[in-house]
């Protein structure tokens, strides 16, 4: 199957940069340590902040480090290739291929995320477990749900990043859009602080936004904070955002294609 082949090739492509991977694991681990101590200090003052105990908080911090590259919170991944190809005009080569543009790049991004999960995800988690007391799920089913949630998180993140990349069809300079996208992702995913710490109604709001699917939703499954109906609802919301964003991408690409083909961009 073509898309599986694409995902495998993408996995292999990212695996050629071993030095970058090792450096990244080191960086994630250093930040993990720093943020862990911050969280320990915070939860010492307020041991039930956001409904988490201190072990939850420290686990959250290490899992969030593990998710950064896996779901590409900062951006990056195959959508960066798309933005580059739009800018250089190489995108026409993609138009000459009898395959789904979106499917192609999504498959590539899933291959990339699989590689990042196994390296940039697994390694810092092991480091964190050696240095701190982390909480691990006790049933294999929870691990499975977590992985499904991470996969959905990758698709949601891909949808957002693809929409951002597509602005290159209209904008000559993407710097503004990229910074805005990054700030949103960092704050609304839970990477900066767990979303459960947001006060009052803002907490419900940020939990409903698509960015929550990137970090907060999978980690709540891991920690056992969302179980049963709540877990299903969480996954359902992720799946809904994934579908909406992919549809949005399809629509934007149609418009961009029309602009290119009819107006001669």
């Amino acid at each position, binding site marked *: 199957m073509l898309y599986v082949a694409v995902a495998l090739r993408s996995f292999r492509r990212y695996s050629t940069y071993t030095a970058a991977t090792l450096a990244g694991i080191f960086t994630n681990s250093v930040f993990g340590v720093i943020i862990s101590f911050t969280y320990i200090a915070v939860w010492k003052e307020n041991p039930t902040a956001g409904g988490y105990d201190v072990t939850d908080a420290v686990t959250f911090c290490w899992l969030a480090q593990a998710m950064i590259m896996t779901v590409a919170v900062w951006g990056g991944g195959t959508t960066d290739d798309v933005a580059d190809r739009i800018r250089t005009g190489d995108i026409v080569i993609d138009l*000459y291929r009898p395959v789904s543009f979106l499917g192609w790049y999504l498959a590539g991004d899933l291959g990339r995320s699989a590689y990042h999960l196994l390296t940039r995800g697994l390694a810092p988690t092991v480091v964190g477990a050696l240095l701190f007391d982390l909480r691990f799920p006790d049933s294999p089913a929870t691990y499975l749900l977590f992985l499904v949630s991470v996969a959905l998180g990758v698709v949601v993140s891909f949808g957002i990043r693809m929409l951002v990349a597509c602005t290159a069809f209209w904008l000559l300079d993407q710097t503004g859009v990229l910074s805005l996208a990054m700030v949103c992702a960092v704050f609304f995913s839970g990477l900066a602080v767990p979303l459960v710490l947001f006060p009052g109604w803002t907490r419900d709001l940020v939990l409903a936004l698509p960015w929550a699917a990137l970090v907060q939703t999978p980690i709540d499954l891991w920690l056992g904070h969302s179980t049963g109906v709540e877990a299903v609802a969480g996954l359902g919301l992720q799946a809904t955002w994934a579908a909406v964003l992919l549809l949005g991408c399809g629509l934007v690409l149609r418009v961009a294609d029309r602009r290119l083909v009819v107006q001669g961009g």
Partner: protein
Amino acid sequence: MSLIEVEDLSRTFVVRRRAGRVRRTTDVVHAVRDLSFDVERGEMVGYIGPNGAGKSTTIKMLTGILVPTGGRLSVAGIDPSRQRVDLTRRIGVVFGQRTTLWWDLPLRDSFDLLRRIYRVDPQRHRRNLDEFTELLDLGALLDTPVRQLSLGQRMRGDIAAALLHDPEILYLDEPTIGLDVVSKGRLREFLRRVNEERQVTLLLTTHDLQDIEQLCRRVMVIDHGSLVYDGSLAGLHARGESTRTLVVDLVDEAAPIEVPGARVTRVEGPRQWLSFPAGASAAPIVASVASGYDVADLSIQEPDIEDVIREIYSRR
């Protein structure tokens, strides 16, 4: 029915320009204007013209990624812009300045992905790949990541990639740009062979007129969006009133040579340059020069197609 049929094809672009603080003017640019031509199966056609003449616009319309604003065209019986995906399976496209290969992957992996994209039967793929590998000398490169290939090597890889799904038509946009003489020669040899043995129709745009001289029997010249010439290379010479040059080395310096049918264009010591129409035979001129003067050496320079085309442009 011809393989490619183009009738009164036009494409205009609307360009908006600022003409003041608020006011904007709208200009209509005719990139291609009432273009008509047919290309038969198995032809090798050179498509030339200065930058901005409308070459790329034409190719984009022929390959379906640009919708014409007027006229009619059909490629292999297909309306390109309406059935772009169907068409992609029947054509190959090579851009000298872009690559269809994947930067981080070995050449072999790129070829394998293309096989899956075009759903080529594995056996046929193997046969094609073996043949191209041999003809283009790709054997040692198959396991090298594309980013490590030289320009010439990458180009060979790109051409193989464009032909793997057995396209009926191959469009080449500046295929020899940036290549050295040996690589160019090898590529032309390969293209000639593909055209002869596989009956692939070739349409190439180029700035390197040697590509045309060595490959194409038919030339189309476009300027300002209109076809200014369509025919044989020899006809192009006649049309541009091109001339051949007889270079005569005399034993001693002498006054300009006077012979019927040719005139001296330059004198430099004992060497003189005589020009005569490209269509005329050199034999009588050589004979009369040899009989009337003390000649040490003679040589003939063929007309330069670039001068011919410049001549055609300047007369418009």
